[in-house]
């Protein structure tokens, strides 16, 4: 398991190469990379606040839960904080498993959980001012679908 919380930019391609090179028993690697949307050209910066200490714990808990539900060989979660420019990568998850189904499902699960259960808050700064991004009801509904 590899959990990283950082303000520094990252190269998704390099991260994927390193993650893939570490796997010796897997037949499938799935990744998701989240980018800062540019709001049709109006976004100046996306500021991401987090709760140092809780963030790392929450991400590790989410990764552990994924490992108990699917036969995963490895999990990576990287999430940035601080001020990001439009189109910059914000975060990445990667899962490695013997077979693709587990890797796909676990990556989807990780994304749904870290959207609403990891302590990050996004603020969009535009020429017109700054607005905190409001959590969507559908994000909470997505979690319900994973409950069992």
């Amino acid at each position, binding site marked *: 398991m590899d959990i990283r919380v950082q303000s520094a930019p990252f190269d998704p391609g390099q991260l994927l190469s390193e993650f893939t090179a570490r796997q010796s028993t897997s037949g499938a690697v799935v990744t998701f990379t989240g980018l800062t949307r540019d709001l049709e050209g109006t976004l100046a910066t996306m500021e991401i*606040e987090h*709760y140092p200490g809780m963030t790392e*714990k929450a991400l590790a808990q989410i990764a552990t839960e994924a490992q108990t539900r699917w036969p995963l060989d490895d999990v990576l979660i990287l999430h940035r904080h601080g001020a990001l420019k439009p189109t910059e990568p914000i975060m990445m998850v990667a899962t490695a498993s013997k077979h693709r189904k587990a890797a796909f499902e676990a990556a989807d699960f990780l994304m749904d959980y870290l959207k609403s259960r*990891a302590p990050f808050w*996004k603020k969009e700064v535009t020429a017109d001012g700054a607005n*905190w991004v409001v959590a969507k009801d559908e994000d909470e509904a997505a979690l319900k679908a994973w409950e069992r």
Partner: protein
Amino acid sequence: MKIDVLYFAWLRERIGESREVIETSAATATELMDELRALSPHHAAAFADISALRVAYDQELTDFDTPLGNTREVAFFPPMTGG
């Protein structure tokens, strides 16, 4: 007991502090919020609608009516928007 109270996102902006130490005898976050509302109009406004808030005890998400017990750090924040 003394508790570190932390605020994040718009809650932090509305209150004007990211952290304060509160001497309290509150048994739950619900009771703690009653005490916080009395501190200033900013606090009262920030805690006006708790359906817009979440709470963590010692960095674990929980419910407002969970007993505080030996909790040292209580964080209040809006619903999270990661990913």
